[in-house]
């Protein structure tokens, strides 16, 4: 138990580091976040480059045993308004992208978890126009 407690603390520190790292390497209209659940440590990101927006989530710690989810939506300027995709889930890194108007906006929701009690725990969302949590 003591080892787990120490590991949890270190994972939080690593997650904070990850958030800083993501902010440093991604372009201006982008966000990144560190996520943890049980022994799982992962990261998520979104960005908009020109007419493309993309988001993803990946595992840094967990040896492939962490369930990862990604769901995103975007503002379509063809008159349909907000369009939302269904959740994509599994045990490999999640990634999705869509071509949008350069004036568009998008929102990405990410999750990483171990037990089914947490598929939507630690989910973060942000818009590519907004600040990261």
């Amino acid at each position, binding site marked *: 138990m003591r080892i787990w407690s120490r*590991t949890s603390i*270190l*994972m939080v*520190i*690593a997650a*904070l*580091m*990850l958030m800083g790292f993501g902010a440093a*390497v*991604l*372009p201006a209209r982008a966000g990144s976040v560190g996520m943890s659940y049980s*022994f799982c*440590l992962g990261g998520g*990101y979104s*960005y908009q*480059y*020109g007419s*493309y927006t*993309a988001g*993803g989530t*990946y595992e*840094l*710690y*967990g*040896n*492939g*045993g*962490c*369930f990862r989810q*990604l769901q995103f*939506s975007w503002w379509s300027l063809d008159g*349909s*308004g*907000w*369009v*939302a*995709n*269904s*959740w*994509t*889930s*599994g*045990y*490999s*890194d*999640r*990634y*999705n*992208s869509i*071509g949008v108007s350069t004036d568009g906006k998008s*929102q990405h*929701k990410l999750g990483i978890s*171990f*037990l*089914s*009690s947490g*598929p*939507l725990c630690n989910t973060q969302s942000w818009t590519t126009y907004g600040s990261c949590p």
Partner: protein
Amino acid sequence: MVRLLHSVAYAALAFALVSGASAACGGAADGPPPQGELQEILNQTSDFQRAFLQDGEVSFEEYERSVFGTVQCLMDHGIRILSGPKLVAGGTHFEFSFGGAQNDADHDAQLGVYDGCYREHQDAVDYVWAGQNRPDQKTLDDARAALAECLRAAGVPLPDEPSTIDFQTAQRADPPAFDACARPVQEQFRLPGFGG
């Protein structure tokens, strides 16, 4: 002080990665969830999903009914389905889109409805289904190699044995080329959403 914090953080990350192998021994395995975890799932999930999960496994038909249950729930709440559900990733994953909200507040409300429908009809089934279709390491390695080969052929620079960060850099460098390579890899290796 800043350098010290960075050193501590890097050490923490290294510790976490190195000790991951032992910790992950308790992680999800291929196939149905262990009995203890299954019981936790059954205790927490809805009646709708519990009926599918009693035997600890999800058949394709049960997965399909689960997804269409979510879709019907959205429609019952007056939300338009804009595409799908269609099977992707080698027939292992249904995807669809919905929406049509003309402002952010309505969009947030629709996402709230979706979360409710998903929890009622699909989240636990998705979790077990994904476990049954969890790729082994060789599949992941082969998929990464195929993605890297396609990207290099498209002129996107990648180092030998690219890391997750390298694939993300490639995404940002040329999103259309990355998508053109990622989609067929997802289909071939049955990995929904795979991006390296």
